[in-house]
Structure formats: C-alpha cells, structure tokens
C-alpha cells in the first residue's frame, strides 16, 4: 500500500462561498501540515464551485480537488460518499478532516468504516504527537462533563471538528496553490436513498450563528408564545436572535433550527441569556463559546449558575420584561 501522506479537508460551501467551518478546518489543517511537514489539500463537491477553490487556497490549502457535476447539486449521502471515498483511495491522505456539520456527521463515519479505521467526532483540539506522528484527537464525552484524547495507529486518521473550535487563517489571495478538477463518475445503481422533498423552515431575522446576542429559552418558558413576545423583544433590542434548548424544539414550541447544544447549533455570541434553562452539560456544549453568559432561573440551585457570569434568581415572566424595559431606557440615553 502506498504510504499515507498529507491532510485532506472535506470542504463545504454556503451560497457559493467557502463555509465558515471549512475555513476553520483549513486553519487547523495548516497547523497540522506544518507539524508534519506535509501538504494540505481540500475537496469541494458541488454542482457549481466557482471561485471557492481559489478561496480555499487563500485560506491555507496547497491543493484543491474539485468535483463539480450537476448531479451533486443537492447533498445526497451515497453520491457524495462515492466522490469522497474515491479521492481518499486515490490520494491516500494521512489525515482526513470533516466539520461536525450535518454532512460531516453523516459522511465521516461511513468513510471511517469503509476504510476499516476509526474516527473521533466533534473534536475540540487536534495535534500531532511529535514522536509517532499520530493524530491526538481531543473531544468532549459524557455530554461535555469530561474530555478525552484518543489516538489510533490506523490510517487514514479521521476526525470531525466542532464549529468555532478552530481559528481560520487570515485570507491571503496571494498564497500559491493548485486547483485540480476531478472526473465525477457516479454509479447511480448504488444510490438507494431517494430524496423526495426538501422543506426549508424560513427563520426571519439574524442567524443564530452570526448573532452578537442570543436570548435562549428553555423548558421553563412553558409554551411557544413567550418565544415570540418577551424573549423576542429582548433579542430585537440587542440586535440578536432567539434560541432554545432542546425541549422547546422537541415540543414544537420553536423550530428545530433554533435548538442550541451538543445535538443542535453551536453558537458563540458576545452575550448569551439563558432563560429558564437548567444548564445541562449537553446544552452548555452549544453555548460555552459565548463571551458572557447571563442566567435567569427561578431555582437558585440550577446548574446554569455554575456556568454564568451574572444571574438573577427569579421568574422569567417578571425579570425579562423589567430587564428589557430598563435596557431600552439605558440604551437610548
């Protein structure tokens, strides 16, 4: 077997541009490539890649493989897997990195089991053991109650990385690099899962991932309404967004797209109001990147007070309108 060499990043596009998570993966990949003194490449799969290949080079890739084909317009796990699996076999990378995204969560385990190797999902830190050159893969376990560093001798070494865990490089359009188009051959007879319909739930206003302020409501909110009234009013005042813990999403009070945490969105706003949220580790996993966490909870023993910087022990029905009213006054003066 050929010697495994180099790092391959599976890149994702949003609206024709490199996704933020991909710039973060390239930032991390560049660091690892430096430690190994090997190349960093990136694979982009889409019906239309445009300038994203050049963007990937500007963010740190030495080589960008593009797989561009009309059949790849929509993400479909089996067709995307065929493309990725072939490139992994052809280029024999030492390390393959995915984002801990909808696609990455789906694709990476398939690739790891196909290669009969292993995978660490949702990594927060990756480094190279200088002696063995093996990848040290650190990820949260027990919902974030602890962290574990894993290591394996099997190649390729595969990991998915949590969004916002790594820093991208400064974009440098003068970086040299090569875009290599690959031939896309999909064996359609192997496609078993047919996408019949896609339903997008439109969220108005600013996206949670980009919001500088988030007002996040939990099970203690009790119903759908306050998410559209008192919580929303506070969020709008702060030019932010409303989010939720898992129970409001499971109960259908809010859209699933608003769910923050280990199995939801990972956010890192400047300020995060956790309202009627107990502070389970799986929820904190999604918001621990916030610069300031403010807790409002009627239970003084709630775990959220161990995570927050400022807190009020009280009923949100009383605290939130008063807080919003006073802030309105203070922010306008």
């Amino acid at each position: 077997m050929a010697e495994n060499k180099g790092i391959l990043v599976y890149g994702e596009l949003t609206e024709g541009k490199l996704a933020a998570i991909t710039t973060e993966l390239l930032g991390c990949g560049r660091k690892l490539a430096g430690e190994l003194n090997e190349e960093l490449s990136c694979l982009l799969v889409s019906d239309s890649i445009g300038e994203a290949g050049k963007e990937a080079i500007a963010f740190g890739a030495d080589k960008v493989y593009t797989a561009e084909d009309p059949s790849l317009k929509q993400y479909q796990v089996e067709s995307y897997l065929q493309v990725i699996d072939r490139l992994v076999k052809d280029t024999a990378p030492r390390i393959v990195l995915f984002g801990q995204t909808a696609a990455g969560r789906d694709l990476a385990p398939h690739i790891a089991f196909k290669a009969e190797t292993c995978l660490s999902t949702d990594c927060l830190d990756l480094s190279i053991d200088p002696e063995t050159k093996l990848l040290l893969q650190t990820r949260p376990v027990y919902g974030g109650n602890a962290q574990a560093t894993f290591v394996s001798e099997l190649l390729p070494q595969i990991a998915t990385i949590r969004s916002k865990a790594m820093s991208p490089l400064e974009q440098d359009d003068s970086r040299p690099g090569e875009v290599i188009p690959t031939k896309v051959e999909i064996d359609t007879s192997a496609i078993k899962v047919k996408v019949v319909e896609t339903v997008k739930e439109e969220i108005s206003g600013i996206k949670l991932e980009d919001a500088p302020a988030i007002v996040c409501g939990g099970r203690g909110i009790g119903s759908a309404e306050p998410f559209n009234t008192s919580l929303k009013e506070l969020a709008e005042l702060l030019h932010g967004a409303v989010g939720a813990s898992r129970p409001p999403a499971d109960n259908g009070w809010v859209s699933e797209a608003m769910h923050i945490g280990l199995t939801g969105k990972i956010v890192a706003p400047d300020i995060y109001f956790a309202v009627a949220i107990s502070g389970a580790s799986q929820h904190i996993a999604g918001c621990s990147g916030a610069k300031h966490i403010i807790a409002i909870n009627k239970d003084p023993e709630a775990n959220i007070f161990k995570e927050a910087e400022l807190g009020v022990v009280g009923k949100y029905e009383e605290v939130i309108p008063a807080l919003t009213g006073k802030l309105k006054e203070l922010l306008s003066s």
Partner: protein
Amino acid sequence: MPNMIVCCKQVPDPEAPPSLFKVDSAANKMVIASDVKPVIGQYDEFALEAALRIKGKQGGKITVLSLGNKIARDVIKKSLAVGADELILLEDEAFEESDSWATAYALAAAIKKVGEYDVIFCGRQSSDWDAGQVGIGIAEILGIPAVTLARKVEFSDGSVKIDRVIPDGYETVDVAPPVLITVTSELGALRYPALKGIMAAGKKQPIVYKPADIGLESSQVGAAGRHINLSKLFQPVKEAKCEIIEGENGEEAGVNLALRLREAKLL
C-alpha cells in the same frame, strides 16, 4: 409485516447533575456517583418509539439488541414493557470497553445471526460517549443504506419513507428495505409502559449471547477489538463565580440586571 431491530445502550443517566461525573485520571476512567441511575440512552428510546409506531400501524416484530456487561435487567426490560417482542443481550466481560468499531462489529454480527430484518433503528448518538458512529457503522458492515436523523418513519410494502432533519428544515427520503435508520429527538419521547406490558415483560427472559455465539473471537470484541485508544481523560477546570443580582422581587432584579450589564459595559 416488517421485522425491526432496535439497538439500545445502557448508560448512566445523562441528565444527572454534572457534579456527579468525575474523572479518575490515574485509571483513565469515568467515576460516576452511585446515585446516578442506569437508563436506556435517550436517543435509543426515541429509536424504540419509532419502531413501536410502525408496529402499531403495520404490525411486525421488534427485536431489541443491547451490548455491554452487567446490563441491569429492570432497565433494559423497559423495552419489552413498552412493546418490543424479543430482547437479545450481547453480554460478557469481553464486551467491556468496546469503541464504536467494536460495538458496531459485534452488533452487526448479532444482526446477521437474527437473520431477517427490514429496518434497523439506532439512536443518533449514545448518551454517554456521544460519538454518533455505531448506526452508520452497522450499515457499512452489513452493506445496507443508512438514513440519519429521522424525525418520522413510515413503512409500507417495499418502501420506507423517512423525514430527516437537515439544517433549517427537513427532507423526505424514500428507500427500499433493508435500511438502517438513526433517530433524533424530534421524533418524540418513548411511550410509558402499560401495567399489562410491565407484567408480561417481567415473565420474559432475554436471550444472552457471548462472543462465540455470534461467531466472534474474544480478540475481536471489547477492549481487544478497539480501533482507537483512549490516551487521556480529563475535566477542564471551571472557575465558578456567578454574581447574583438581587432585588426585592423579579421586576426589581430585572432592572438591577440591566443597570449591572451597562455598568460592566456588557451592553
């Protein structure tokens, strides 16, 4: 009528207070306080509920598989009490400390032994190690398609229709069985067992398989069958220092919080 298999893992209650989860760094092991009760993983319960809904409409058979050692009968038998037909435990010391690979490998071997299946359900991820790999791994080993993050599953002759969660919405996919499906929380909570179910479950005995019963050597399972090793387990230290903003009542505390946020220049 569909033959369904649901994989369920026993885990320490993931909702127990974080202070009850400690790390023994010398032994590289989690130390979980004895007041933390074992439960079936949350997403495995959602997976079981998905199977029960199909059984409610189309009939069929549900076999629950669980891998581990010292599996508490009263915990895992909840699956029988809510309506599963058969319970198979892969239970042996040799299965301890399995990683995702060893777990998927043994479960796939057991599924081959069960033989007939149309749909295999797994939770989207375990409620302890959170890796989210075993379901997809089983599908790869068996060479069948996997559909992840199901929030609704419908079975009709020769076709399974699944609504799966995607960023900002969902998509409906169609696939011919056999298929492996991982289930997420929006599907809905597991039903409560009825008294009749609890009584019936009490009388049923699980089938217990050792590695040899599913055609595996001890070198292929548990710690010996791992593909990845745990080199370090630790707990990042947190400095807890929450400043509580007081007030005569909730309104006053809200006003004081606004003042404090401005004073600290957080807003």
